[in-house]
């Protein structure tokens, strides 16, 4: 080992982990001595883990891209089948018709949900799906300017910047107005023939509902592509971005039957209008017939991918989230149109109930006038960190400290309410604020 280390110029194995911040590195387990038996070790670890408050044991109002939604037990039941769970890159059509069909169904449901013509077999997550959409629009238009709303998730914007760094994309941010949505007047001023795309989120990071149509219409008149990043749950009641003029729709599918899992694995949704079919990165499942005329499924349009097209491809992705896409497909099939509508409606009604309640608490106010879906921003009388620490002691996970991402929003909290949030939980929160 010493030889291997010295040949790469390192003195210890620890040096290979230098990128990990020191304060998150494990420096031994407190209370667990070396050389203990399996039983002692298990007991020691169990008592350590009891110090945690797993999300399920708390009432949570934390969203900002990952939130707690209903996960029908049949989802886990199906994805746990070893044919699905253990298969790696199961795309050889001769023996993978099951998973290929399931992904085809997933793609079809995503098209239905978003109002788009074609969807791919998924990307890694909502953030990279968005960056890939930007990349595709730049490849297609040949232009380098990107106009992205400040109301798009800050982490998503950071990922877009990371993707664009090597390529020299010119990324400009669109301000939001005082009602809490992207400012159309700012957009109209920044429109020119050097812009490849405009990017919005709906609902946006503040939870507010954007006027998508007015942006897509203005963009179209200048040959600019419109990219909309969505919360698929919201599509249970909101108008579909495809019907509002979006050219590419991306989104995060974690809310479709996937647990939060410390932030992953996630599910990147990517769907396009017909004319952009060949721009779509990643894997696409297509329906075809075999030589005996029987319906079958295969990966298709693979010649666009970078393992064949090399430097001409708009993406280097060579994977997808098959198991997560399967989970989402099962979720959507189980919930159905009515179920999804009900989930979305409950999110909307419950969030508004909490919004109303908090607006009447002394010292608190609702930050934005715009209609919101399941998240909203409140202005608090003191630091959010302090409020959240107090709430944690009562087994409540408070909302996001918005000031950490938007310096103009010090003492503002982003709260998330879903169909799983109970009235008692919301009342308890309100009583403590």
């Amino acid at each position, binding site marked *: 080992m010493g030889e291997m280390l010295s040949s790469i110029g390192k003195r210890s194995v620890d040096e290979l982990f230098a990128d990990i911040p020191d304060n998150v590195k494990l420096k031994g387990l407190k209370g667990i001595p070396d050389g203990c038996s399996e039983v002692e070790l298990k007991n020691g670890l169990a008592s350590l883990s009891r110090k945690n408050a797993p999300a399920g044991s708390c009432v949570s109002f934390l969203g900002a891209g990952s939130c707690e939604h209903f996960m029908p037990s049949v989802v886990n039941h199906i994805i746990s089948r070893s044919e699905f769970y253990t298969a790696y890159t199961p795309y050889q059509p001769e023996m993978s018709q099951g998973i290929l069909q399931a992904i085809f169904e997933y793609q079809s449901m995503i098209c239905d949900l978003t109002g788009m013509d074609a969807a791919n077999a998924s990307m890694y997550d909502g953030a990279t799906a968005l960056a890939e959409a930007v990349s595709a629009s730049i490849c297609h238009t040949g232009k380098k300017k990107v106009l992205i709303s400040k109301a798009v998730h800050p982490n998503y914007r950071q990922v877009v910047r990371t993707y664009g760094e090597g390529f020299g994309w010119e990324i400009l941010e669109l301000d939001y107005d005082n009602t809490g949505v992207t400012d159309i007047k700012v957009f109209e001023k920044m429109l020119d023939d050097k812009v490849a795309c405009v990017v919005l989120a709906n609902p946006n990071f503040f939870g507010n509902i954007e006027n998508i149509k007015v942006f897509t219409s203005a963009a179209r008149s200048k040959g600019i592509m419109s990219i909309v990043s969505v919360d698929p749950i919201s599509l249970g009641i909101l108008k579909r971005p495809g019907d509002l003029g979006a050219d590419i729709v991306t989104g995060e599918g974690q809310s479709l039957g996937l647990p939060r899992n410390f932030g992953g694995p996630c599910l990147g949704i990517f769907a396009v209008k017909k004319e952009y079919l*060949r721009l779509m990165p990643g894997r696409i499942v297509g329906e075809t017939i075999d030589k005996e005329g029987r319906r079958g499924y295969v990966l298709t349009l693979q*010649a*666009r991918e970078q393992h*064949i*097209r090399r430097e*001409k491809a708009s993406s280097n992705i060579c994977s997808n989230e098959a198991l997560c896409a399967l989970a989402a497909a099962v979720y959507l099939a189980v919930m159905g149109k009515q179920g999804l509508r009900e989930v979305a409606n409950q999110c909307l009604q419950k969030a508004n109930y909490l919004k109303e309640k908090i607006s009447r608490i002394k010292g608190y106010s609702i930050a934005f006038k715009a209609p919101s879906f399941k998240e909203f921003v409140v202005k608090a009388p003191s630091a959010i960190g302090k409020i959240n620490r107090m709430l944690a002691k009562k087994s409540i996970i408070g909302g996001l400290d918005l000031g950490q991402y938007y310096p103009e929003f010090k003492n503002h909290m982003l709260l998330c309410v879903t169909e799983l949030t109970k009235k008692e939980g919301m009342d308890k929160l309100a009583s403590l604020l």
Partner: protein
Amino acid sequence: MYPDGLKYSKEHEWVRIEGDTATIGITFHAQNELGDVVYVELPKVGSKFNAMAEFGVVESVKTVSTLYCPISGEVVEINGSLAKTPEAVNKDPYGTGWMIKVKIGNIADADKLLSVSEYKNLIGVK
């Protein structure tokens, strides 16, 4: 399979020159190597290209290949029927499989192209 009266490029395009217009497509050899053509991406009418600049892309089941414009000029017509029947490139590469027509920019570019026999030599057929 390699008609007389046409000029050929090293990148396997053929050119039919009629007055100041050139019709361009890909050769029998090219379509044979590509396999079943499923899509052809053509430029907009009015686009201008230098000799041997990329003018489009031909996609088959197994690969995507760049199309090079053998002669400089401005695109005056594109074969719109290829959108519905890309297989014409395989079935009739010199006829209904034509791709673009350009108004020739510099006729001297044609001197750099290959004759039938030179092209046959390049691809190793008699």
